């Protein structure tokens, strides 16, 4: 009963916070980030408290140093906790967990039932899924980096990032900068962006995951019209929106992601391209931030890495979110005509 009352007051508290009609008008981007982070932490706490009576599950661990059975807490313990029972090396180097040999699971997502558990790092024999998670996480951290890098006078509205395509050579984040209509970053500014990114990765922040309801997600992204217009279509499948948090930055993604940012090693933010939307779309232009990164511990010759950087400077051919047709098609039609 006591618990229920507390929950009730808490929801009341942040609903009151949220439903204030003027909140949109007064939020600077920094305040919006703080608020979103606050809501994320409240919701996370609420979900953990909701578990109530703690039940135990058996997790069969497979891999080095030896197979063993761990007894963990249902809906509380994560694969990361299991890894910490093994060794520091397991906790630091594992990027993804594999449950029952098939399900790829975030390192920071609570386990729900009895299962077998394996850890995957970047040097396993078949690293496709780990690579994809890495590329996706790089995009996520790029979003965090871009919001942190600009001055308060420049509002930054993140739009989205496409699914990971490693062969394209660069990870992407499409960002709306409404006050900068024609911005061409100087090399110095690109260096600063890269430096911001490196600062984020060196902190070794865990990438936390949370499934929230559509309503709460809409409340969290009330200041960002792009995200709030995307949320209904995302939530259509099962009414839940998956959020990820790095530092204080909260973003929407399908996941899975890697364990923490210190697993991102050598990197460079290479270029910013302007994408112009079709005239009938409501977003006129976006900036596509591109970068390339390697996992920690990968040793790559600086010359080889410079080739990767040069390639990542070209505009990534991933579909632009604001023009439904790729740019090539009209051109080819024009050429044929």
């Amino acid at each position: 009963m006591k618990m229920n009352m507390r929950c009730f007051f808490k929801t009341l508290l942040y609903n009151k916070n949220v439903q204030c009609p003027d909140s949109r008008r007064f939020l600077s981007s920094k305040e919006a980030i703080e608020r979103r982070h606050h809501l994320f932490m409240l919701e996370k706490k609420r979900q953990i408290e909701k578990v109530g009576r703690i039940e135990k599950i058996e997790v069969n661990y497979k891999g080095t140093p030896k197979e063993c059975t761990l007894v963990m807490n249902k809906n509380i313990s994560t694969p990361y906790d299991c890894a910490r029972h093994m060794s520091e090396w397991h906790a630091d180097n594992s990027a993804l967990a594999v449950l029952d040999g098939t399900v790829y699971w975030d390192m920071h997502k609570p386990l729900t039932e009895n299962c077998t558990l394996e850890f995957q790092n970047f040097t396993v024999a078949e690293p496709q899924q780990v690579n994809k998670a890495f590329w996706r996480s790089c995009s996520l951290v790029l979003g965090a980096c871009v919001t942190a890098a600009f001055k308060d006078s420049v509002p930054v509205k993140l739009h989205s990032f496409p699914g990971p395509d490693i062969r394209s050579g660069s990870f992407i984040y499409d960002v709306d900068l409404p006050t900068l209509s024609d911005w061409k970053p100087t090399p110095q500014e690109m260096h600063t962006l890269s430096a911001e990114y490196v600062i984020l990765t060196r902190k070794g922040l865990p990438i936390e995951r949370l499934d929230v309801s559509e309503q709460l997600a809409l409340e969290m992204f009330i200041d960002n019209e792009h995200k709030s217009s995307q949320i209904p279509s995302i939530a259509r499948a099962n009414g839940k929106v998956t959020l990820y948090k790095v530092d204080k930055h909260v973003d929407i993604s399908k996941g899975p992601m890697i364990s923490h940012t210190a697993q991102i090693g050598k990197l460079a933010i290479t270029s910013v391209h302007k994408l112009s939307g079709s005239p009938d779309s409501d977003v006129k232009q976006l900036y596509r931030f591109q970068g390339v990164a390697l996992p920690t511990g990968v040793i790559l010759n600086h010359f080889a890495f410079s080739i990767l950087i040069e390639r990542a400077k070209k505009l990534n051919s991933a579909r632009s979110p604001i023009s439904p047709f790729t740019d090539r098609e009209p051109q080819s039609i024009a050429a044929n005509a």
Partner: protein
Amino acid sequence: MNQADVTKLVSKLRIKVPPKHRRLRNAEGPEGRINKLRKTVTAIIKYERIEVNYNRGDEARQYTERLIAEAINHGDCHKPTMEMANFWLLEKELVHKLFKVLVPRFENSNSAFTRFLKAPRPAHSRNMDKAVLELRGNPFPSLQNRQANNRLLLQNVLLDAAKYDYRQAKYAEMAENIGKTESEPKEKSSDQKPNL
């Protein structure tokens, strides 16, 4: 013609042997050194993988290689070989292991019988290099992570894609040049005619 082939008298080791042996400083002199190495050789045959100080491990490795090579060449009915095995292996059941397990394992191998890897130095230790000495074909998980050629690693995927892009650009360039070279000579010839 009747001269013995020298290379068959002494088994040739498949590892690099330094010109001089290490002294491995010891209070009992050379005998103490040999006793130390006997312990290491026994241990490597027994456990198949051991961590040792670098110098001692490197020295013991050469004796181990020689011992296994002799055992393969002469078999267990050769008296000097048996004496040698008896001397180097302090635990006598290991003599059986040498002839019945290790000889069949290494009979047809083309590489050295042992592997010698540098190991990390323990923190706050004396300045002593560590190494791992192991017999090839041991049952333990591999110490080396030789996956640089795995095409699926992230860096290899990126480099492959970059290579593919570069080739495509080159082919496009070549295709353009072919068109030009066909048209250019005509222009040149037409230019040259008036000069002639």
